[in-house]
């Protein structure tokens, strides 16, 4: 069931098990038959912890989506609300509860499970509406870090970046710290903590304080992680803005991967039946799960897209040859063996078909003129060319009213690569954007400025060239087929965040003190005492294990880059990645845009 979680250096199945256990305990507390009313946002992440089968085992008979109005008919003893602690959801719950027919029998008991934490504000709100007393069990389910793959954990908290950098609200960081405490309870205290950034500092402080205040958390588990690296997203604002060029990165950029699932246009996936001629084309999008349990996907996900084609054609030949074997099977034994392999071969063939279709869909986009023009401008900026003037391509795109997010990604990229734009250039872009897309976008532009993404150049000097040169962020000769450096993930640009991780491992951050000072926030090192006898003695040739925690979001390209470092011979370190959210440039900028439609209530 969780094959994808045990494939890595650290077996994350234990984390998932802990989550399932906590869920079971709560469900059993509400004894009897139950119906769960779901906050839609939670169904995805929960699906990674427990499937319906587990819920059924604990008498969950029905599941509904949270919406206003009367609750559906269901002959159950308990109705449990699984919700995030948000006021607008409390309104809906209130509506549901007030409309419940009190005269019906048998009466249904109400409970609430807040994910990941209870909220005073929400409970206050329910109290003011007069319904707080209707709930028997009010608990929290601390779903902080969810295992997505053998080396990947995410909190899937999409508002963290905005809350931390724009609203000075560090509640997410508190959850991050709690998540790390849970990890340490299962995998041992992490002896060394490095960090860069204000939020990183806060999380480290919280971890240390939590350890002090909850002495029971001292355990005797042999530490699995050697190092924890906490990185603020705003230390590297550049990377998420650039278009990712790995296979998985492009799938996310174009179609959006949600909780390891992607929805694709169905036309290319219609089963080819003889003589059907293409009538009855499916209209529902094709939904696929993408994780390392799928052999072929694990092989191609982190490759530069230009290197995927040759892998697929090689695979096609191998699978063809394997199916041909049936003609060569002569003895009963050989036939039996062939038949036993059949399911695996069929799965491989179906997997190949899917990814060939996906690759074709992506190729249509990457070979388009617009994609090329956009990428060219991105690469010019990242290599430091013409970042101080108004860019013609961007102006043309505004004039042709391309999607606003595309424009924002480009102007922010230019600003970051120039350490801020000259006032005249900034004003010019702002004016054009407001005149073309509407004045209300002042609000978004202000948010982007606050986040440091689109701002005037204050000090009059541009630090980016120095940072770029010292950290070797732009590599001219990239080998996309057989890369020797992490810059392959953006065909030339090495993600700044991953470079920092790389240099931390070897030769250490002392060598880049000057550059670190140019990046925002403090950098620090902390050590946590291990109980005697648990000091790790590494075997000769055994790699260190480092957990890199991105506070504010991480892209699939950065994950690919870290995986590249992990499998480097003589690399010395294997990486596990944690984050508050899996992001791409579009979803990231979207989270910083002011919601312009007035709320329905």
């Amino acid at each position, binding site marked *: 069931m969780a094959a994808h979680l045990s494939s890595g250096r650290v077996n994350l199945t234990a984390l998932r098990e802990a989550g399932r256990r906590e869920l079971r305990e709560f469900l059993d507390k509400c004894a009897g038959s139950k119906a769960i009313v779901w906050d839609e946002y939670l169904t995805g992440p929960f699906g990674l912890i427990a499937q319906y089968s587990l819920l059924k085992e604990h008498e969950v008979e029905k599941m509904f989506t949270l919406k206003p109005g009367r609750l559906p008919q269901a002959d159950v003893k308990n109705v449990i609300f699984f919700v995030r602690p948000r*006021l607008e959801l409390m309104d809906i719950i209130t509506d549901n509860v007030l409309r419940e027919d009190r005269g019906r029998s048998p009466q249904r008991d109400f409970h609430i499970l807040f994910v990941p*934490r*209870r*909220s*005073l*504000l929400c409970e*206050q*709100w329910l109290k003011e509406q007069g319904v707080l007393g209707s709930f028997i069990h009010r608990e929290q389910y601390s779903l902080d870090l969810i295992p997505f793959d053998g080396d990947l954990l995410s909190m899937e908290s999409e508002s963290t970046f905005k809350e931390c950098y724009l*609203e*000075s*609200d*560090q*509640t997410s*960081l*508190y959850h991050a710290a709690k998540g790390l405490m849970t990890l340490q309870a299962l995998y041992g205290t992490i002896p060394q903590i490095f960090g860069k950034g204000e939020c990183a500092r*806060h999380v480290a402080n*919280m971890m240390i304080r939590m350890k002090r*205040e909850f002495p029971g958390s001292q355990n005797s588990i042999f530490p699995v992680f050697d190092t924890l690296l906490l990185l603020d997203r705003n230390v590297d604002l550049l990377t998420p803005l650039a278009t990712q060029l790995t296979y998985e990165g492009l799938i996310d950029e174009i179609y959006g991967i949600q909780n390891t699932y992607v929805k694709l246009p169905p036309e290319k996936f219609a089963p080819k039946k003889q003589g059907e001629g293409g009538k009855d084309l499916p209209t529902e999008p094709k939904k696929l799960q993408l994780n390392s349990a799928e052999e072929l996907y694990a092989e191609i996900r982190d490759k530069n897209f230009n290197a995927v084609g040759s892998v697929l054609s090689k695979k096609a030949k191998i699978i063809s040859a394997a199916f041909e074997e049936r003609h060569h099977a002569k003895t009963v034994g050989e036939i039996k063996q062939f038949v036993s392999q059949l399911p695996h071969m069929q799965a491989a063939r179906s997997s190949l078909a899917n990814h060939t279709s996906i690759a074709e869909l992506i190729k249509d986009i990457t070979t388009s003129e617009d994609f090329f023009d956009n990428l060219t401008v991105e690469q010019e900026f990242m290599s430091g060319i013409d970042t101080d003037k108004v860019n013609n391509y961007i102006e*043309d795109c505004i*004039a042709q*009213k391309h999607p606003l997010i595309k424009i924002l990604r480009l102007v922010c990229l230019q600003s970051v690569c120039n350490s801020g734009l000259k006032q005249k250039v900034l*004003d010019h872009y*702002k*004016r*054009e954007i*407001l*005149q*073309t*897309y*509407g*004045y*209300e976008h*002042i*609000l978004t532009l*202000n948010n982007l400025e*606050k986040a440091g993404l689109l701002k005037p150049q204050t000090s009059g000097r541009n630090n980016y060239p120095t940072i770029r040169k010292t950290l070797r962020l732009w590599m001219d000769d990239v080998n996309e087929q057989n890369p020797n450096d992490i810059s392959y993930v953006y065909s030339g640009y090495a993600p700044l965040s991953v470079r920092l991780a790389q240099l931390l491992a070897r030769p250490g951050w002392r060598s880049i003190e000057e550059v670190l000072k140019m990046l925002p926030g403090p950098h620090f090192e902390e050590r946590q005492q291990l109980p005697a006898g648990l000091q790790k003695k590494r075997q000769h040739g055994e790699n260190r294990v480092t957990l890199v925690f991105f506070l504010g979001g991480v892209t699939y390209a950065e994950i690919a880059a870290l995986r590249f470092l992990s499998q480097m011979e003589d690399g010395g370190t294997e990486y596990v990645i944690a984050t508050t959210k899996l992001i791409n440039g579009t979803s990231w900028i979207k989270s910083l845009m*002011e919601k*312009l*439609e*007035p709320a329905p209530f």
Partner: protein
Amino acid sequence: WQDYSSDWSPKDTVRRMQRGKVCSLERFRSLQDKLVLLDEAVAGHDGNVITAVLIFLKRTLRREILFRELEVRQVALCHLIHFLKEMGEQKLLLDLLRLCFFSLSLQLSQYREHLNIQDVEKRREFLKGCIGLPFSAEDTSHIQDHYTLLERQIIIEANDRHLETAGQSEIFRKYPRKASILNMPLVTTLFYSCFYHYTEAEGTFSSPTNLKKTFKIPDKQYVLTALAARAKLRAWDDVDALFTTKNWLGYTKKKAPIGFHRVVEILQRNSAPVQVLQEYVRLVEDVETRLNLATKYKCHDVVIETYRDLKDRVQLTAYKCKVERGSAEEEKINSILNNMVRN
């Protein structure tokens, strides 16, 4: 008995609240104690606890004192604003905003409220009120423009609605409006104006030249928008006039603040006839682009003339197969080829 002890310091209280225990804060009577409590809550980073303490302070402190203390505690201030917004305490929120102007985001918070006002007249009034707030100089001018634009749109909308229902205006009869102009961006409004009110004198609110002047729309943007509108109406003479200027000798010359290849693109998208398209392809400066476009859109004369100017026999000969046999173009090519031989 521990739950009822009254000996807890603010720090202990905050710690207990972080663990989810209900604590009565009533014993913190003095301002000093309350502020220490607030600072401890902020240091603990737990949003729940900070909000709980703020609720208590809001209830037990005079507003002026609370606001004054929050001015120097930005994190707590942000939490209170968030709380007031969520609880819908508009009046208190606005009072808070008026008193605490040190942070730019508070004015914008105010400005953002306009989105919740559906009625255009009320929205216009609201925007007018926003202009006086202490924004940066740049933002002030944008908000001023927003107000002015909405004011104009209301007038144009009322007028045009009237024209449409009266049924006398040809353009509105031929091209009935699909949507109202209210709350549309400036460039969209300009397009609308170039479409429906192109010939109006500068004095009217709905004339394109008036919009250009009032909002200081740069030439480039203006020409592009006017071009798109006139091309959609297939008003090729108007397109021509956009690019024609008379120099001091009285000669007419064509020039554009945008590349002519862009003009061609837009004309082509609006299915301009080849004769019109050809005029502008001819004006594309870059030879390679000109040849590409001319070949793509079958502007034979331009292709022929360009190869002639390049003295490229080979291409010219090759192009013969792209034109109709016995056509004027074929004759033209032959004639040029012959001349090349002679010279």
